[in-house]
């Protein structure tokens, strides 16, 4: 039977699932909108998987909801998205030295040398220049996000847009639009502003060398891709599975985790229809007032997190104790 590995990347904007085979070929890639409901989206993704007679032998999760996904699926490995993206990229693009990754809320730059991560940075307190901002602007201008980049490419003279802060960028765009600039020029200007912001904010001080890979949902935007090429003067490679690279990385890590015949912790495909209950409460045990989130499956608590002291860790709490919180 075909041995398959499932990689799941649950991010703010999208939830991606990848089925990979023993030869690290991607058999199926799913890109779903998280829409603020990570649990349901994971289940929806599971129900859409086509195993074609194969069997899932390992599961890896990544992304900001990686722990949630791991609890629900029964994961063999849980990894941060920086490592996952780096693993995927260096497998698909041998020799890669720079990864530009722009996702929904996060943008990151990863520098690799000799196949290992030597430096990285992530946007910290600012989400200007990420996928959700582009989404929002596309919505405001009533264009499909899928068409954004192609419209931008038709521009002859991109206007200059302030890219430092998404709030300023938006008002700048509105001002330019009210002056009568064309839509392609405004969109192309926004692409340039985003790239400028990314390179100054996330990429500052980093040694960007070819080959450069651009991945994450925003890599679909050809306008941004061209703006990067112009700003860096380098060829930008967008890999085939650019939008699900985190999940690809998680699948590769899952394959490594179960190598040597370790049985997988995967709960099975029927997880798609299980009744998971996510709830939260504020612990009043001390002045920290931690927000505790718990994930339950029928009457069992699968996982709990959010506490600073660790007293809500699952293995040590019986369901009865939750009542008293």
């Amino acid at each position, binding site marked *: 039977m075909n041995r398959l590995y499932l990689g799941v990347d649950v991010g703010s904007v999208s939830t991606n699932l990848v089925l990979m085979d023993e030869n690290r070929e991607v058999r199926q890639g799913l890109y779903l909108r998280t829409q603020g409901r990570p649990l349901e989206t994971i289940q929806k993704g599971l129900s859409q998987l086509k195993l074609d007679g194969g069997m899932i032998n390992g599961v890896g999760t990544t992304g900001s909801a990686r722990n949630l996904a791991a609890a629900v699926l029964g994961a063999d490995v849980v990894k941060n998205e920086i490592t996952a993206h780096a693993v995927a990229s260096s497998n698909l693009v041998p020799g890669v030295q720079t990864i530009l990754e722009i996702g929904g809320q996060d943008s990151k730059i990863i520098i690799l040398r000799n196949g290992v991560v*030597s430096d990285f940075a992530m946007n910290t307190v600012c989400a200007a220049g990420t996928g959700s901002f582009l989404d929002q602007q596309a919505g405001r201008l009533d264009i499909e996000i899928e068409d954004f980049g192609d419209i931008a490419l038709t521009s002859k003279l991109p206007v200059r847009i302030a890219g430092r802060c998404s709030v300023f960028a938006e008002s700048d765009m509105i001002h330019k639009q009210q002056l009568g600039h064309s839509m392609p020029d405004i969109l192309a200007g926004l692409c340039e502003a985003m790239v400028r912001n990314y390179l100054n904010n996330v990429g500052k001080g980093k040694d960007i060398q070819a080959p450069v890979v651009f991945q994450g949902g925003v890599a679909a935007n050809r306008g941004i891709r061209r703006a990067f090429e112009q700003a860096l003067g380098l060829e930008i490679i967008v890999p085939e599975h650019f939008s699900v690279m985190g999940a690809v990385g998680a699948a590769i890590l899952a394959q490594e985790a179960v190598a040597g015949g370790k049985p997988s912790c995967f709960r099975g495909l029927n997880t798609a229809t299980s009744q998971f209950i996510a709830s939260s409460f504020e612990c009043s045990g001390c002045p920290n007032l931690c927000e505790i989130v718990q994930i339950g499956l029928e009457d069992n608590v699968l996982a709990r997190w959010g506490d600073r002291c660790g007293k809500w860790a699952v293995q040590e709490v019986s369901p009865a104790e939750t009542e008293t919180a």
Partner: protein
Amino acid sequence: MKITFPHMGNIWIPVKALFDYLDIEFVLPPQNSKRTLSLGTQHSPEGACLPFKLNIGNLIDAAAQGADTMLMTGGVGPCRFGYYGDLERDILADLGINLKLITLEPPDGSLTGLARRIKLAAGDKPWPRIIGAVKFAYGKALAMDRIEDIIHWARPRALNPRLAEEIYRQAQTELDQARDAKGVDRVVRDTRSRVRGLALKQDYEPLRVGIVGEIYTLLDPFSCHDIERHLGHLGVHVDRSIYISGWINEHVFQGLYKAYKDISHHKALAKPFLNHTVGGHGQETIGGAVDFARHGFDGVIHLLPLTCMPEIVAASILPQVSKSLQIPVMTLYVDEQAGEAGLLTRLEAFIDLIDREKRMNRRISDEQTVLGG
């Protein structure tokens, strides 16, 4: 007089000891929490840093519990902190909360000026008693630093890190309750022996990470999402460039006492990269990173609250330190965010990075030892 002092990690323990010793009523604000932050954010200028906002929250809480006087430390130089006490008093006055302000600082560097202010807080108490109180409180600060460092050691090595947290909490309570110098020493001794009694991981040599940066975020776990605990539970041994006693010694006593892990040499270490004061601990941040690199640490994490000027300067110089001393450095800004997912992602990725770097260096040095020469 009912005096209060804003929180900054464990500093409440020595401050409370000072006033208890002098028999002056002390109002301890509730520990920093989401509530403190909401209160503080509501009443602070938007561009102020996180510590300022938490201060405001603490002071409003303390006033509600009857405090009528606030004690603050001041400072000179380009960091805005030196003026926080006055600004906070004025903001509170606008809210109808009138607190008297005593700023503990040596104005123009004169110790007699400092003494006058201490006397202001201590009231009619005789000088020998005041000096006794200061010594006792400083003893608690030193003990707290030792305890924190014992916990730094225990967290990554304990099989069950939760037990290390329990020992830590117990030590905080006991240190607060200690009534004399002997009692203070006993808490440190007991903590040490409790940690010795922990079941440890076999043959485990943790990665070592040094934390540098702005003092409040370094010392106050609420403001930095308890980064030390997260790192410890991820199996990392943590040290930091600033401990409470060092700060009190430098800010209040002008270096008169001996501090725990004294950092007076950090300014000199910073020299090749930053030879001018930039306010706050900007220079010490650079010096601290150099110090950690020289002591063979595997990585450095730089912490600062958003809009902190001295640390912004330091952040722009740290890549040079990283490059020339070959030590990975990661800068983390903290502000109002309550979610920890982003922080954990960065910490985990950073640990992956330094772990691989360490293994690679070991491989290279093995090769050189065996095949070189």
